[in-house]
């Protein structure tokens, strides 16, 4: 009840929709105002309920489905967001390879100068660092012996991981399926040659 004892909007709606019967609301029979409001609402509801939507011809539905089908055909599959497409095979090989090359170039670029100075003392690589570098050693197989020999830390890593194959590295949890390392080590012969050429050029430039 509201408005000094009159029925609220909620109560009137329940009566209009038949969720509550008039008999269960004795106020309606005793209050002219509420009875009038209820009659108005019921009249409006009756007018609204009479209005029908003209039914289109049955042929329309066939045309409609065809239109939707044509429009949907222009769309990618709903689950194929850009992220999904980026990482789906074989679409992922290009971006993953590019990222792997960039990471390797970045690492080589910023490690090489301090390691290759002939007057610099030999670095002692802590055991923890050696362990952390192990995954990279798989990719270092791509480097030539000459390049490794120029860098003592690389040579150390190469020695430590000489007998470490891909399966052993995977078993040790250093790599996982779909990782950048996986992509790099599964490149075609042509891609490997190209990667080696790029790395060789970069190392030569830094070493010069």
């Amino acid at each position, binding site marked *: 009840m509201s408005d000094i004892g009159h029925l609220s909007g909620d109560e009137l*709606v329940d009566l209009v929709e038949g969720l509550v019967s008039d008999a269960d609301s004795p106020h309606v029979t005793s209050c002219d105002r509420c009875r009038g409001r209820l009659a108005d*609402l019921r009249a409006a509801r009756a007018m609204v309920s009479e209005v*029908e939507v003209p039914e289109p*011809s049955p042929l329309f539905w*066939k*045309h409609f489905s065809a239109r939707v089908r044509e429009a949907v055909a222009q769309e990618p599959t709903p689950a194929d967001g850009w992220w999904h497409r980026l990482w789906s095979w074989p679409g992922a090989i290009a971006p993953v390879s590019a990222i792997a090359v960039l990471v390797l170039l970045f690492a080589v670029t910023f490690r090489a100068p301090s390691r290759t100075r002939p007057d610099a003392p030999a670095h002692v690589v802590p055991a923890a660092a050696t362990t952390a570098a192990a995954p990279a050693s798989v990719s270092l197989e791509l480097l030539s012996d000459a390049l490794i020999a120029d860098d003592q830390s690389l040579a150390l890593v190469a020695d430590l991981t000489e007998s470490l194959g891909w399966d052993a590295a995977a078993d040790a949890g250093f790599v996982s399926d779909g990782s950048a390392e996986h992509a790099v080590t599964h490149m075609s012969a042509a891609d490997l040659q190209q990667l080696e050429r790029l790395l060789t050029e970069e190392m030569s430039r830094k070493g010069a």
Partner: protein
Amino acid sequence: MASSLAWPWPSTWTPPSAAAVSAEPLVTDAARSDLSELDEPGLVAACLAGRPGAFDLVVERHRRPVYHLCYRYVGNHEDASDLAQDVFLRAYRGLKNFRGGSSLSTWLYRIAVNVCLNRVAAKMPQTEPIDARQVVDAGAESASETILKEERGRRVRAAIAQLPPKQRSTLILRMYHDMSHQQIADALGSSVGAVKANFFHALGNLKKLLEHE
């Protein structure tokens, strides 16, 4: 605010090519039968997996109520069919976001209400003249009764079009789509109390609008 929500209105409807209409989707009867046995979550999953014919089935199941809802907003066949197509296209794009928290029909109604409100905000609906309507089932009514009924319908549709968006949406979903207060609240992103209040005010305002004509 409302106008900022408007999107570029699609160009006038062009019928699909004859080849598109005559060509059934490349779905075998067996595959279609398999799809038709799927429940709602299964059908949604089939759509997301890109199974041919899955979204066709969604359209087939829901096209009529979606079209009717759109018609209630715009009052003419051309705009209603364009809007209904847009609803399904948006549904297809957003299907990956459908979590199943409500039924697929409630989710489609929600999309339809947003699409229609944007449309109505961008362009006042043009109701069809009586003689242009596609009245298929006139039944045994006399011509004069049919004309009077159509005239009453035109007045009521015009009055509904003047209601505030929430009241109009609540009234349409409650009266013509038999949705519960809770379902309407889900579709409109409001509460049951707000739905009942909007319904109450919608009926009251309609009464006043129709009296003033």
